[in-house]
């Protein structure tokens, strides 16, 4: 009887417990439903959380205001070229300017323009590169930009080992205060990029902080340059909190009269995209500069935010290991089979939600190197199977595809695997963290196949030279350049006239495509997300120039 009583008592407790659990779960469910229903209206309407989405539209640029944005990282080195990567340069664009900068007009025509110099001239016959500097340009520390300062900057970049083609420099002269002449041994049409696009920092600031050793590679100077930057740009560094924020203030003595329009800029460093998106929607920031995906663009565009981008963006491609003589990718039939295996249009549409553009050839249609009548390899899995069979892979071709372990790349990797497997490959995905991925791509090389982007430079000959040529700026370690390509590269850099460069770029791109040296996939556009009161064209000139001085905001 006692035992039965205990059992009944436990049963009673158990029933009570279940009831309470049900009540609790019901409350939770109702709470979640309320939460979800609260979120509904924002799906299709303008953001209502802040009135700032309805700006007072003005006719032209308005001065004033602090732009608040989000970036995904900060500079690891601010002003010593020898330890700066592309990311560091891009974070420093508000403060640092270049002798020659890229320019894209409203019709999309592009080229180089003199920036800190009034003009420049390259003489292939006399073998000189002459910069004629602008007068009256001041650095943030009040020192003046003159020929000696530019010479010092060039020398520092040569000394640091990061000035491409430095071995071609014979001497640097300064015939007067505003002229710098580089004498070289051999002409190259890449000098505008390699030597013109040269960042200029204050020599006076370096020497004041370099300690006893005033040399261009002073250890103390390099340590100072980690978190200090003194340039000629429209904004001065106000504060940098590593991994937290970077704050800029207007440089009152900026050389372009009336600019910059903004009083300052504050960028928070946030890697989590949901957090960044929430900050934007809450009105805590005006612009989300980096770290967003196609999904974010779609959602935020539907909510009325401004999604803006100019260039085709980063082209994605598959690169076989062509360095290893034993690699299957030495066989053009396998390389071609890869092209036929992929339905790029469908993949680009699905993965990019309408924002990605499938690429049938190396260069996009707006660029040098695009060949309008090029017979491309469309989606044809049967042909892929045939080619694999001819190459000796009747029973499947095993492939290890190296993919960076970030959501967009993982999705793309899964999609590629699906198509390749269906066409006779047998793909194993190798998801690598960022360090291992880039360490393999640029350092030790990849074993089999990798999905990796390539760049977009001012013109496509520069892009080719930076990424595909035998003397690249960014060297993909397992991408081979056969002797016939090396010979074409040498010929290409010697061409001085524009029409000749265009024709050569077409030849080079045709070669890469016909030989299937890589398999272009799609272009991932580079975009910014902001409120509509922010007026900017910061991606118009590509990745190596951001014209922060021209950004302005409507009163809001």
């Amino acid at each position, binding site marked *: 009887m006692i035992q039965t009583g205990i059992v009944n008592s436990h049963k009673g*407790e158990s029933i*009570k*417990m279940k009831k*309470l*659990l049900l009540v*609790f779960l019901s409350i939770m469910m109702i709470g979640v439903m309320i*939460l979800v229903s*609260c*979120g509904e209206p924002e799906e299709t309407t303008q953001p209502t*959380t802040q009135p700032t989405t309805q700006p007072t539209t003005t006719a032209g640029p308005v001065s004033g205001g602090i732009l608040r944005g989000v970036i995904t990282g900060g500079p*690891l*080195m601010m002003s010593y070229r020898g*330890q*700066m*990567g*592309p*990311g*560091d340069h891009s974070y420093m664009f508000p403060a640092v300017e270049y002798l020659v900068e890229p320019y894209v007009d409203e019709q999309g025509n592009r080229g180089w323009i003199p920036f800190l110099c009034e003009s420049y001239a390259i003489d292939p016959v006399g073998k000189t590169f002459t910069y004629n500097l602008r007068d009256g340009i001041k650095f943030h520390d009040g020192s003046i930009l003159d020929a000696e300062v530019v010479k010092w900057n060039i020398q520092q970049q040569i000394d640091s*080992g*990061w000035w*491409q083609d430095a071995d071609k420099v014979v001497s640097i002269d300064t015939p007067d205060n505003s002229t710098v002449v580089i004498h070289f041994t051999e002409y190259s049409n890449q000098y505008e990029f390699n030597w013109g696009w040269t960042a200029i920092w204050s020599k006076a600031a370096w020497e004041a902080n370099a300690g006893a050793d005033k040399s261009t590679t002073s250890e103390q100077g*390099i*340590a100072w340059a*980690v978190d200090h930057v003194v340039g000629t740009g429209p904004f001065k560094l106000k504060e940098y*909190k*590593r*991994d*937290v924020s970077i704050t800029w203030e207007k440089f009152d003595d900026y050389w372009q009269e009336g600019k910059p329009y903004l009083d300052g800029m504050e960028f*928070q*460093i*946030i*890697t*989590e995209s*949901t*957090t960044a998106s*929430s*900050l934007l*929607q*809450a009105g*805590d920031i005006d612009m989300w500069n980096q770290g967003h995906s196609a999904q974010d663009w779609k959602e935020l565009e539907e909510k009325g935010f401004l999604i803006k981008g100019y260039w085709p963006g980063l082209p994605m491609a598959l690169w076989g290991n062509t360095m290893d003589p034993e690699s299957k990718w030495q066989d053009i039939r396998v390389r071609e089979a890869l092209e036929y295996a992929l339905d790029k249009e469908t993949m680009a549409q699905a993965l990019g939600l309408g924002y990605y553009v499938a690429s049938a050839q190396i260069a996009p249609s707006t660029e040098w190197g695009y060949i309008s009548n090029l017979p491309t390899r469309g989606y044809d899995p049967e042909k892929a199977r045939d080619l694999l069979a001819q190459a000796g892979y009747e029973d499947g071709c095993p492939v290890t595809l190296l993919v960076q372990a970030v959501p967009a790349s993982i999705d793309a990797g899964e999609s590629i695997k699906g198509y390749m497997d269906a066409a006779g490959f047998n793909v194993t995905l190798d998801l690598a*963290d*960022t*360090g*291992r991925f*880039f*360490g*393999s*791509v*640029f*350092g*030790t090389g990849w074993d089999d196949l990798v999905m990796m982007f390539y760049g977009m430079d001012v013109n496509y000959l520069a892009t080719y030279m930076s990424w595909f040529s035998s003397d*690249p*700026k*960014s*060297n993909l*370690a397992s991408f081979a350049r056969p002797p016939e390509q090396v010979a074409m590269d040498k010929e290409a850099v010697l061409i001085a006239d524009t029409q000749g460069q265009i024709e050569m770029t077409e030849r080079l791109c045709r070669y890469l495509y016909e030989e299937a040296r890589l398999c272009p996939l799609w272009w991932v556009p580079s975009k910014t997300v902001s409120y509509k009161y922010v007026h900017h064209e910061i991606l118009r000139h590509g990745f190596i120039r951001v014209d922060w001085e021209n950004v302005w905001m409507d009163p809001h």
Partner: protein
Amino acid sequence: MTAYIIRRLIIAVVILIIVTLIVFFVMQLLPGDPLVIFLGQQAGTGSMSQEQLEQLYIRYGLDKPLIVQYWNWISGVVKGNMGESIYYHENVGKLLLERFPVTLDLGIKSFIIYNILGIVMGMVAALRRGKWLDTFATLLSYIGVSIPVFWLGLLLIYLFGLRLDWFPIAGYTLPTEDLWKNLHQSVLPVFCLSLMGWAVIARQTRSSVLEVMSQDYVRTAWSKGLTERKVIMRHILKNSLIPVITIMGIGLGLMFGGQVFIEQVFAIPGVGRLLVGSIFAQDYQVVQSATLVIATIVILINLIVDISYGWLDPRIRYG
């Protein structure tokens, strides 16, 4: 007691040496090379000559045999120099000094909150065993241990940051800079950090109190006619705390490495973020030194926890 503490300190030094050996050599076993990874992420190896790369190896001491590298690091640490980060181009000591106060600030706040709440709730649940309070506390503790903090953080951001605009969505300010802002910014991350600790402490306290309540000395205390307050505070609570304090010690240790998700979601520049970033970059100096500092703290906390047992339970003797 003094002999016990000295013996424990000697063991602690031995453990620390073992920790440094493991961390150092495990980092070396990872595939890849920190300089190549760094340069790779900078997408610039194409423009750096082999000679210049070798100069960097010399600069960071990576050209030397492993045992020499280990000795250089350890001897540097003993002299107070933790080396230079390859990735950040910064002194590791300075990097850690930037990050530890942030992690400590959030960690201590959540530690205090989850322990007080957890002990109170565990006590109440045990004393009201089988009643609705017990059921409610048990349910909450299940939720607390099972909810992923990353997801919870995003949910809180959406609800309290974006929809209700009660708290900042992201960011961190040191209390020494602006106390009010710091407290305001801390609410959501500290809540996330506290939830699991609170649930674990509550569950442990409940079961521990239930066990103590059935002990003879508690029955004796009741039989002496002591008030409920005295029985609970003097006889039940104090004796229930030994296993709870063990968990507290573990929690303090986890504080340093366990905040990485919260730091990521709320954009907080703490040790966890530094450590994870450095592991991916194979930034040896940072990983080794941060691990050494954390290991030292964990060992010291465990020592303090062990010593506290004697105060809580006089029957415990240190041999």
